[in-house]
């Protein structure tokens, strides 16, 4: 069996025995800055905009809904099951379909939608990153298939950095099969190093902070 063969070779190469404890690992190194929420929002917006994303600071749930309605005007949209979206009234908008719990139907809807609307579990201020854990509230494909992605996020969910995320969530695998960090619109520079957006993932992203 290749498993035993390979493990045996590894042990022989290292001079270790089966079941031998490992040498202690170096300590975990996470540095979490202190930052006020308002500063976090500022940083988040600056980073997202630097990556050609759009941001909006909503004054209320209704304000957020208005922004989204304008952004998706004339397009079809699929929204996730995140409670925040329903609270803001976004799922009730006429061109928004939501309430998908089954993968085939979801995929079909996303493949033809002009826009995907989600919330985010966390947001990272220093890099302008959306953190999305797959769950019954958030499917993977909504933020991936449609050419536009709108994320409506609660300001309380904005963390300073990846280090803070990892200190809050030391074992993401215990929560979900998929945690994705999204930093800006999809891009490539594979041909002559010329930047093109929206290769496979969304080419346009909006972050709405509520």
């Amino acid at each position, binding site marked *: 069996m290749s498993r035993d063969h390979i493990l045996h070779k590894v042990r022989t190469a290292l001079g270790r025995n089966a079941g031998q404890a490992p040498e202690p690992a170096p300590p975990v*190194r996470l540095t979490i800055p202190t930052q006020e929420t308002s500063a976090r929002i500022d940083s988040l917006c600056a980073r997202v905009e630097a990556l050609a994303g759009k941001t909006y600071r909503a004054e209320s749930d209704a304000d957020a809904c208005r922004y989204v309605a304008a952004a998706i005007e004339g397009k079809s949209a699929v929204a996730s099951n995140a409670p925040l979206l329903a609270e803001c009234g976004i799922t009730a908008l006429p061109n928004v379909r939501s309430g998908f719990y089954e993968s085939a139907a979801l995929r079909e809807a996303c493949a033809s939608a002009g826009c995907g609307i989600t919330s985010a579990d966390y947001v990272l201020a220093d*890099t302008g990153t959306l953190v999305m854990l*797959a769950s019954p509230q958030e499917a993977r*494909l909504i933020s991936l298939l449609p050419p536009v992605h709108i994320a409506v996020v609660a300001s309380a969910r904005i963390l300073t950095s990846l280090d803070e995320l*990892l200190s809050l969530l030391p074992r993401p695998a215990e929560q979900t099969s998929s945690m994705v960090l999204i930093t800006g619109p999809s891009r*490539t520079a594979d041909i002559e190093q010329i930047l093109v957006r929206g290769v496979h993932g969304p080419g346009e992203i909006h972050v709405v902070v509520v």
Partner: protein
Amino acid sequence: MSAAFDEKIHETLGDSKLQFAIYASTARLIAKREHALEGDNLPDYQELRTHANALKKNTIDNLDYYLEQFEANVVAHGGKVIYAKDATEVADFVLSLAKERGSRLIVKSKSMTTEEVDFNKRLEHHNLESVETDLGEYLIQLAHDRPYHIVAPALHMTRFQVADLLTEKLGVPNETVIEKQTMIARSVLREKFLTADIGVSGANFLIADSGAIVLVENEGNARLTTSAPKIHIAVAGIEKLISRAQDLGVFLKLLGRSATGQALTVYTSFLSGPRRGQEIDGPDEFYVVLLDNGRTKLLADREKRQSLYCIRCGACLNHCPVYRKIGGHSFPWVYSGPIGAIITPQFLGVQHEPALPFASSLCGACAEVCPVKIDIPKILLELRADVQKSNLREGKGKMERITFRIWAWMMRHPRLYEFAGMAAASFAPSSNGGWLREVPAAMNLPPVRAWLSQRDLPPPPAKSFRQLWRER
């Protein structure tokens, strides 16, 4: 060096368009990395490198433990781990799974490991289509070519070559606008993503305490590859392990910045197992293929084991003045640049291309930028010694060995050394101080000829230093 190596180098140096493409692309990547690290952008960069090196050392030095921990956690989350000792076993696994499931179409995200095992080629004759989805890799696949650079596989292709390629292979009208070319590829590949049976990815990291893989990308094709099809297979070398998810704080800070100057790439996916419980989408089956293919050989060498710390950022390629002249295709294996130069002889044996460890001026630019502090020049020097030992065993390189023996003997006998110096100087043509463009036949030995092919020679001085000193 082998004729093939010499020929490829010569060809690349003679292609001025290619020289420009290589130099300009690497210059851009150099500048981006520098910008990402300057001033306050990452003030603890050097500390992070030291820490990353220590983390990799711990994982690699205790690899059996972490492999088993990784495996147990993958299984706990509903996935399966397959150990493959070589390229054949990887292909056999995929083929047998595809056969069992009646799969016809595979979509692939960028993976140097799958290049290493000739993945696409091995699946070719089995009624299985395997499509590369990273834009650069897709173009390379269409062109039946090899990747030019770890991070920028189509670095050597111009938009005009891409236009002709797409027209030839897809039958589309000739399109030279890069954005439009990208959209053509996007729509072709979208269809593949949505109908594929299996998604095959590599893994930038394997996380032992989570049974997870981490994929880092900018396009979104890796996300689609691992989320749309019902089956996800990740193929990764055993050395990709890191021990804890929390260590990603260190590694991700270094990887993006070192590779492309990005604090984080557009998408970082942390995937552990098939979709769970009430999750709406994602694969139903999740496999991680752990590949040896010679890595256990590298593990056994205590000095060179650090070659396995590599996180495939490509910074060493970008900064290497030799890579910047000879490009990725001059290298004899899929891994090019300084990292390629040190792992190729270790995987394939020093006699595969004995000149490879010598294709370096030992300038050390690579070691300076390696995020995990692999001492590449030191390993090159060790490999050079290995080549000479091997040459001795195989009866090769006699002339050079004898030359150095004589040289060493002379250098231990100062008067002989001085005499030899005077004798050599007497052969040189007289000069008014100008440097020499040519020398008399008696002096025109191969090294002298090689020197003169590129630059002039210094005229030997009338008196050596020691003669001048004596006369003071």
